[in-house]
């Protein structure tokens, strides 16, 4: 089965995306089953790594003005967090 792909935005500094630590992050789904849902965003609890192979899915990283980093990271999505309904 092909790996799922996501992307995320880091506002200024890649240090804001700590590796191998469970954290909350906004990710966009780049490979949904129904293509109409591409770029759907969600809050998720996840762990990430600079290593492309460490976690099950791929994570592309963009800086605050959309600059795409050359190499993808990897991500393990633990669960979606419904922050909007919690508000």
């Amino acid at each position: 089965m092909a790996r799922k792909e996501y992307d995320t935005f880091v506002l200024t500094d890649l240090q804001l995306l700590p590796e191998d630590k469970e954290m909350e992050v906004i990710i966009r789904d780049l490979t949904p089953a129904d293509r109409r849902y591409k770029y759907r965003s969600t809050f998720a609890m996840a762990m990430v790594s600079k290593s492309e192979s460490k976690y099950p899915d791929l994570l592309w990283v963009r800086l605050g003005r959309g600059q795409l980093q050359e190499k993808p990271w990897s991500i393990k999505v633990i669960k979606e967090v419904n922050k909007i309904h919690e508000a």
Partner: protein
Amino acid sequence: MKKGGKIMPYPVFKDNREFIKALEANNDLVTIQQEVDWDLEMGAIVRRVCEKKSASPYFKKIKDYPNFEALGAPLATYKRLAIAMGMNPDASVPEISNEYVKRTTGDPIKSILVDKKKAPCKENIWIGKDADLFKLPGPMVHDGDGGRYLATWHFVVSKDLETQAVNWGMYRQMVFDEKTMVGPVLPFSDMGKMFYGKYVPKNKPMPFATVIGCDPLSGVAACAPSPIPEDQFTGMLMGKPVELVKCETCDLEVPAHAEIIIEGEVIPNLLIEEAPFGEYTGYRTSPREPRTVYRIKAITFRNNPILTVSNMGVPTDEGQLLRSFSLGLEMRKLLESQGIPITGVYMLPESTHHMVVVGVKPIYSNIATQIANLIFGSKLSPWFHMVIVVDEETDIYNKDDVIHALATKCHPIRGIRKYEHAVGTPLYPFANPDDRKWSRGAQVLFDCTFPLDWPKSDLPIKVSFDKVYPKEIQEKVLKNWKNYGFKD
């Protein structure tokens, strides 16, 4: 217009569909039958159209969305603005400006409410679970944008909690998930004052309705910074009342002939990251940051709805053109209301509405400073930061002439006055990150008039065809121009 006490409509269009037909009749439309992808391809086409000033692209087949169509760059040129106003497509900018001022200076024309059965925007209604933003073909406009921007050429309807005043304004909206959109609502904007000033302190959600694919003049009105309510302003531009219809889930009213309506609530005390987005300045300036959240409740739309798509970037898109046009004319009304002897006001769309050019008869000293003080004192001034004042021998609509005056008449020290501590926007590319964060700006006046205290004998004489040749020689040359062999 009023004739014998009766309102007479101008030859304008009741909806986007009639406007599309008019663009086609005027050879200003390219109908694209080939399937186009909403994911960047559509945006790239519209961007190139804006940069080349090409005809509007009308997309008949959108990938993944078989029942939807889209119109790109609907009002990105003065020709299309002239068509939208029912004027000669070749009308000059001063002609369009004068017509616009004439129509919008009289009495406001109140809109009328029509029955839902007579409102095409109610042909399809999705409420509750069915209301899903991903069922609409929101384009990924630029590579690197923070999301899909469903609302790029549209307006948001909202109502003041205390005064019940209605506002139509263009506030960009990015799709976050099926039910959520996010976007910037600056605190000094009309909707910002309503929402952050009145709803948020009471922790009340604010009902909103996003109108996509409206008739062209409602879009022009939503861009216009006039104190007249935008629905009535549209009526003035049309010469007849706008037809509105009640929303399904709130007491707001929306144009009955619009293509798509998204209803919902703006949520207080919750912010979600939005952006980046290619902006009207021609840059991606404001960073991704927490912004205003819209939760949707219903989507209503016409059969085979036509989405309107603008693509902000380097000039010229409709945001730059119409905002420049209407901001400039509001400044003209302001200066005329104060009795300043101006010859005209023009905002260059290429300046991304940052530069106001004012022509004046300099009959007293420091008139340029007085003009700048009035313009920078207006509530609209956060949207621009440069005022260029030229005398009556400069054609304010002619870029070459304005640049010539700026480069030759403005003294590098005495002609420039700087204004600090101004209100700015987070979108100014020249501002530092802290200034952007706090919407701080600065402003500058370029006085391109010669001082009145110079002796007449010392005044430089402009050397141009129409200034330094006797009338009879000019007429002779013009009459014989083609005989000499020139083709232009």
